[in-house]
């Protein structure tokens, strides 16, 4: 296993560097309380602001309660004139992938910056042959395992049932990066129903399990085409740019040709872990 970044809660003025998958995002704001909140929220993933890292300037505004704004407004991610525009009811963001600078306009709640970071990470890791996945991930005996499925499939349940020698990377959104001929799963601070961050470590990926609830515990190896199709359903990707979508498709196909993918039927008891790995 590799420990990513030191868990040193040291930040300067109104900024904090959040390091996920070895990639720092330096968040700056004039609102010191907002930065202090993020330091607590992402503790374990806070590192040193690095030169040349992504920098987001966050402008905190009062929530608009005019009866017209809608936090559930659909997310829109567009790449225009060399810049990403990321908009939703609760935030407006822009990010330049060349200068690595961005600006976010949001209220003081952390959910918006959570989303912006996830989206930026998804775009960057996708360029490098990896992806973010709706998935729990766990490290056991030096190897990482992914457990993927939609809400309610059992990601948090299987995380809760993990044996004491297992380390949780996340119970909600997994970070998968390409490393040489293989892949690694990295911990993230993005928590699901378990309500806690994962560990800030990474490990080589040994298998992806697609969750199906059932009466018996059983894992069956899937064919590559079916595995790719089901994997793509669970990848987080927000751009509709044709070239990037095609690239992500290729990455998913490459992944299933290198990492075994299983359909995992399980009943919610800890014996499921006897057949993992």
């Amino acid at each position, binding site marked *: 296993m590799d420990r990513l970044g030191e868990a040193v809660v040291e930040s300067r003025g109104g900024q904090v560097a959040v390091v996920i998958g070895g990639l720092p995002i330096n968040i700056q704001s004039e609102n010191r309380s907002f930065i202090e909140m993020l330091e607590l929220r992402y503790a374990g993933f806070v590192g040193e602001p690095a030169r040349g890292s992504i920098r987001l300037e966050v402008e905190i505004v009062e929530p608009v309660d005019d009866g017209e704004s809608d936090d559930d407004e659909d997310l829109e991610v567009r790449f225009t004139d060399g810049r990403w525009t990321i908009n939703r009811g609760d935030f407006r963001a822009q990010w330049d992938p060349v200068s690595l600078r961005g600006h976010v306009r949001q209220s003081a709640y952390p959910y918006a910056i959570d989303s912006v970071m996830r989206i930026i990470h998804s775009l960057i890791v996708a360029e490098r042959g990896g992806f973010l996945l709706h998935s729990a991930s766990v490290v056991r005996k030096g190897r990482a395992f992914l457990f993927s499925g939609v809400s309610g499939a059992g990601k948090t349940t299987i995380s809760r049932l993990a044996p004491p020698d297992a380390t949780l990377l996340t119970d909600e959104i997994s970070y998968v990066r390409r490393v040489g001929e293989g892949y690694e799963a990295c911990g993230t601070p993005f928590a699901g129903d378990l309500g806690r961050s994962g560990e800030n470590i990474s490990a080589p990926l040994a298998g992806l399990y697609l969750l199906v609830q059932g009466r018996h515990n059983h894992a069956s190896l899937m*064919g590559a*085409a*079916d595995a*790719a*199709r089901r994997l*793509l359903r669970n990848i987080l990707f927000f751009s509709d740019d*044709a070239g990037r979508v095609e690239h992500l*498709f290729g990455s998913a*196909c490459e992944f*299933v040709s290198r990492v075994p993918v299983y359909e995992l039927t399980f009943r919610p008891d800890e014996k499921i872990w006897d057949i993992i790995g």
Partner: protein
Amino acid sequence: MDERERVNSGDIYIKPSRDIAARRMQDEMVIMSVKDSKVFSLNPTATRIWSAADGATSLREIVARDVVPEFEVDADTAYQDAVELVEELAQEGILLLADHPIGKEGA
């Protein structure tokens, strides 16, 4: 020409849409529509048809050449099934369908 006549005449030509990403994985195809990110997987029989979809070879010829000998099925049944398949894929926007050869520019 009604549906049955069109089907039986064999004058259907097929070609993959440009708005897709596709990859063959062993003997199956995985296809993604770039427009709406829908993903499809084709079984070995459907993959044979997809792989032969050059816009110049009729569907009847594809079935007779690539499906019937390989899978030892009745020719008419195989062709009817193939028509059903290609119409479904065309409705999803991932396959072009025409009653004449499809050139480089599309149907």
